């Protein structure tokens, strides 16, 4: 990890390099070097506040670790209906129905799920309907699982090809503002939009046993 700034090592939550774990037998004890536990990120709370302020009532998702905190917030809110999907395209259709019935919604997915949505995105595009997708990116900074890379690379191109606007977020302190503006784009303009939360922002999934 030497090629990354120290701050990113913390955020990526990868195990410390082998050389710093433990100590040689027989030497006197040295403190085990571990990265400080990262503080829980607060940007999911910024998203939740933006969704509440915009009157979002239907939240559908195929879960991703990056969305876990936001999903918990939504599940704890009596004014929100949270729907767990079997595949992401269901959410595109569901939010079309929500719009027909006069409610606002949001679709929370991982980048791999964007590929599952392609043809269903013809619905908001053809019918000029609002759709807000919030996409947690995989296959980027610090990715351990190479099977995520293909869709990670293709996500923005796929969305753009289907006429979905993309707002990309790299920094925690801009997430709330970006989501607020994506909500405005979708619901004032009746068009589909995706907020892409970069893996650099979220932190890579750590493949270590707890």
């Amino acid at each position, binding site marked *: 990890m030497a090629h990354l700034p120290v701050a990113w090592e913390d955020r990526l939550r990868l195990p410390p390099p082998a050389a710093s774990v433990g100590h040689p037998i027989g030497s006197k004890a040295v403190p085990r070097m571990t990265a400080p536990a990262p503080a829980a990120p607060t940007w999911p709370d910024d998203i939740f506040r933006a969704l509440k302020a915009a009157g979002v*009532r*239907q939240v559908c998702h195929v879960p991703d670790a990056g969305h876990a905190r936001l999903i918990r917030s939504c599940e704890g809110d009596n004014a929100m*209906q949270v*729907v*767990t*999907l*079997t*595949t992401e*395209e*269901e*959410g*595109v*259709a*569901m*939010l*079309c*129905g*929500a*719009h*027909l*019935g*006069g*409610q606002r*919604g949001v679709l929370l997915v991982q980048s791999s799920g964007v590929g599952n949505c392609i*043809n*269903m995105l*013809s*619905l908001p595009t*053809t*019918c*000029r*309907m609002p759709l807000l997708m919030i996409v947690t990116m995989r296959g980027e900074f610090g990715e351990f699982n190479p099977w995520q890379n293909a869709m990670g690379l293709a996500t923005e191109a796929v969305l753009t090809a289907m006429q979905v606007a993309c707002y990309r977020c790299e920094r925690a302190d801009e997430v709330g503002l970006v989501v607020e503006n994506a909500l405005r784009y979708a619901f004032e303009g009746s068009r589909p939009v995706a907020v892409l939360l970069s893996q650099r922002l979220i932190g890579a999934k750590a493949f270590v046993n707890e």
Partner: protein
Amino acid sequence: MPEAILHRRPLVADLLKGRDENLLVVTGLGTPTYDVAAAGDDPRTFFLWGAMGGATMIGLGLALAQPDRRVLVLAGDGEMLMSVGSLATVAMKRPANLAVVVLDNEHFGETGMQPTPTHAGVDLAGMAAAAGWPATFTARAETDVPRLVELARRTPGPVFAVAKIMAEKLPFVLPPKDGAYLKDRFRQAVLGKA
């Protein structure tokens, strides 16, 4: 299984007979869209011309948003087979005001009448029952139609019913196909002026 004897157009007309402002209809692409158009255009029908596999989930989002109105999804067997996952999704939410009726001719009628898996015996109502839908039914004969209508229009749901219909090629009856127009007139009829 006996040969299907129900005709789709009169069946759909029965399902929609006397509809009022409290019935919201979503049609799956292909022949169900033409069947519902043949029964009479209505701004409270959202006709799909694409988005295959989306009809049931549009119905769910609509049913959650409009809990005091009845939402009826009329879909073909090809449409429903593409979205069997939504049987699980809807079963989790159990919206009492949603009914899905599959017009099952056991064929892809739009593309040359190739047989679908229901032709080989795949039981969509059985799949819905296994997913936990509280009311499921398969209609095969004229004598089943009154119960099918009751299920579609009034029985607390979510209701999932299959109507085994003849594989017949009928004249096109085409509703408007501009999605933005269909959406706007639906919302205006349901929600009032924007």
